[in-house]
């Protein structure tokens, strides 16, 4: 019997299917870069529109949208599940991905002219969207591997000569993370006989004492930590992100690292709720160390893009700590922080890249781009607003997200991590103002001829305006964050029921073959 699929349940397929269609179409028109870029942007923006629709649908109805691929219900087939958490994450990712492609169309990098640049970019988006929407652990592995391969190729073709080396390093480490995830899948399958997340959550809750379960949890946690570059597994991140082309860097450093955050949230609120305490404690400790370490690394570096890559390490510390506290307020803070950080970080990276593209030889090293900001004063204005957001000053959205994190920490009296976070915030103010002072306030050194043309500033302009808008009118996002946190903490049973509904219907009506009258 086929499960009932309402027209609205097909909505969850579109954010995954549109980038896939885009890959095919952009490969067909590879002769004309302008058409190819516009088509890629159209595909990603269309996917963004459908994911907004999906989020609105889920948010208003309060029910997750479930699609059973090929009509095979529940744990027997592959399911795509759009609940509030995946909805928010997908909207965030696709917004930044669409802006990344928009930046790529106005970008002067040579690698953006390669015929496979846009298809690979769309593949990166496809992998990211798919891994956030899937309801199956093995599918998560497949989509995450797609992200890894697309990201590696995009960095390996970078204009930066060090790109291939950084990509090689990243690929090895990420492949090990993916293998670890695969072993975790094997352990879960051997213990519970299923890989569907809802089914798995139900069975683990019934019998949490299987010997292989702790192994599976640790391996899953490690693979997600490598994905989001949490403190002890961060070593590949600054090199890899610095060597990537600017549009790719903006996406990698803002939304691709959020895949790990999504994994942590799924682990602690759906899959392994009984063992979540240990995971949460380790997340708080590692996040506190990571926040300070990332901040200090950013303050001590010599390259604008590298500074922002280190800053991602620091900011992820804030999110990871909020995930680890696991109260309604702190989970809401994690969602708000993740959303705002994506917009801010992507905008700042694009601005740094746009200034770097004015240098005689494209680079973002402070020593080579001193004073070059004077040729693009608009970027300076945007950088100030983005920098205020990164450091968490009002009236930007960065202030809202830091306020949410600190409020949730004060509510449960966790003062020790808060001290680390306060230090990290202070350091972020220092490195942002240092970068601004070096790039925009110093005079251009003699003998340096800045290029007349640089990267277009449309994408960072849109992102910075969104930052300001979300700072001045923060209510919808804060409300969304709180609703998502409530859903994660209380909607677990409902999630499981919604996914497995079709299976139960099947069991009721199923007749063994040959016994029909």
């Amino acid at each position, binding site marked *: 019997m086929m499960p009932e699929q309402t027209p609205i349940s097909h909505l969850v397929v579109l954010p995954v299917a549109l980038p896939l269609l885009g890959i095919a179409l952009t490969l067909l028109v590879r002769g004309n870069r302008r058409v190819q870029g516009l088509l890629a942007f159209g595909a990603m923006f269309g996917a963004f529109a459908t994911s907004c629709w999906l989020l609105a649908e889920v948010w208003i109805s309060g029910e997750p949208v479930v699609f059973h691929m090929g009509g095979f219900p529940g744990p027997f087939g592959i399911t795509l599940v759009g609940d509030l958490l995946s909805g928010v994450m997908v909207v965030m990712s696709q917004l930044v991905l669409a802006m990344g492609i928009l930046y790529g169309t106005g970008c002067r990098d040579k690698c953006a002219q390669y015929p496979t640049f846009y298809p690979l970019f769309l593949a990166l988006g496809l992998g990211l969207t798919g891994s956030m929407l899937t309801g199956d652990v093995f599918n998560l592995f497949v989509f995450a591997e797609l992200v890894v391969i697309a990201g590696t190729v995009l960095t390996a073709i970078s204009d930066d000569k060090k790109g291939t080396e950084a990509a090689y390093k990243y690929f090895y480490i990420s492949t090990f993370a*993916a293998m670890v995830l695969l072993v975790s899948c094997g352990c879960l399958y*051997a213990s519970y006989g299923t*890989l569907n997340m809802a089914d798995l959550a139900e069975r683990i809750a019934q019998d949490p004492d299987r010997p292989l379960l702790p192994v599976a949890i640790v391996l899953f946690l490690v693979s997600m930590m490598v994905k989001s570059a949490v403190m002890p597994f961060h070593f590949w991140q600054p090199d890899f992100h610095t060597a990537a082309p600017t549009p790719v860097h903006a996406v990698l450093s803002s939304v691709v690292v959020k895949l790990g955050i999504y994994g942590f949230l799924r682990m602690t609120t759906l899959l392994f709720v009984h063992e979540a305490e240990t995971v949460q404690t380790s997340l708080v400790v590692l996040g506190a160390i990571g926040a300070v370490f990332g901040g200090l690394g950013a303050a001590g570096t010599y390259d604008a893009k590298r500074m922002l890559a280190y800053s991602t390490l620091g900011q992820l510390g804030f999110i990871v700590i909020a995930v680890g506290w696991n109260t309604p307020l702190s989970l809401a803070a994690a969602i708000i922080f993740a959303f705002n950080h994506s917009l801010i970080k992507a905008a700042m990276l694009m601005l740094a890249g746009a200034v770097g593209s004015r240098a005689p030889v494209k680079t973002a090293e402070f020593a080579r781009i001193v004073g070059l900001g004077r040729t693009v004063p608009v970027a300076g204005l945007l950088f100030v607003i983005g920098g205020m957001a990164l450091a968490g000053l009002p009236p930007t959205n960065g202030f809202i997200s830091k306020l949410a994190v600190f409020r949730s920490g004060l509510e449960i009296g966790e003062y020790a991590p808060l001290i680390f976070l306060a230090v990290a915030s202070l350091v972020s103010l220092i490195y942002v103002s240092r970068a601004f002072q070096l790039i925009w306030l110093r005079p251009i050194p003699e003998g340096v001829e800045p290029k007349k043309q640089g990267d277009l500033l449309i994408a960072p302009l849109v992102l910075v305006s969104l930052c300001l808008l979300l700072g001045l009118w923060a209510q919808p996002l804060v409300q969304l964050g709180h609703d998502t946190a409530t859903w994660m903490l209380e909607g677990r049973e409902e999630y499981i029921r919604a996914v497995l509904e079709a299976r139960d219907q099947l069991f009721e009506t199923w007749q063994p073959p040959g016994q029909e009258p």
Partner: protein
Amino acid sequence: MELLIAIGIGLMMAVGVYQVLRRNLIRSAIGLIIISNAIHLLLIYAGAYRGEVAPYTTVGAEAARSDALPQVLVLTAIVIAMGGFAMVLGMIYIFGVRYRTGDMDKVDQLKY
């Protein structure tokens, strides 16, 4: 038999890790594929250790059948591992052209 297979998978893993840790780029790539094969075997035996005959067969219908799902998973994982391995070899080729070496310690421009 199960113990033998478990020891075999462990040995493969050990050989793979040893090869990955060596300085030669090509050896480390081969180590990577050995490790992924060890993990694929592990996945197959996660589903098959109670089974005696292949799934979807009519021969020996009374014997316990292996689970078909891990074999499907492994098929997917093999394809992904193959794609990744091809890409690693491509990158090693680029190193050969740009750095004229197969020694990992000489590919060191990222030393900051």
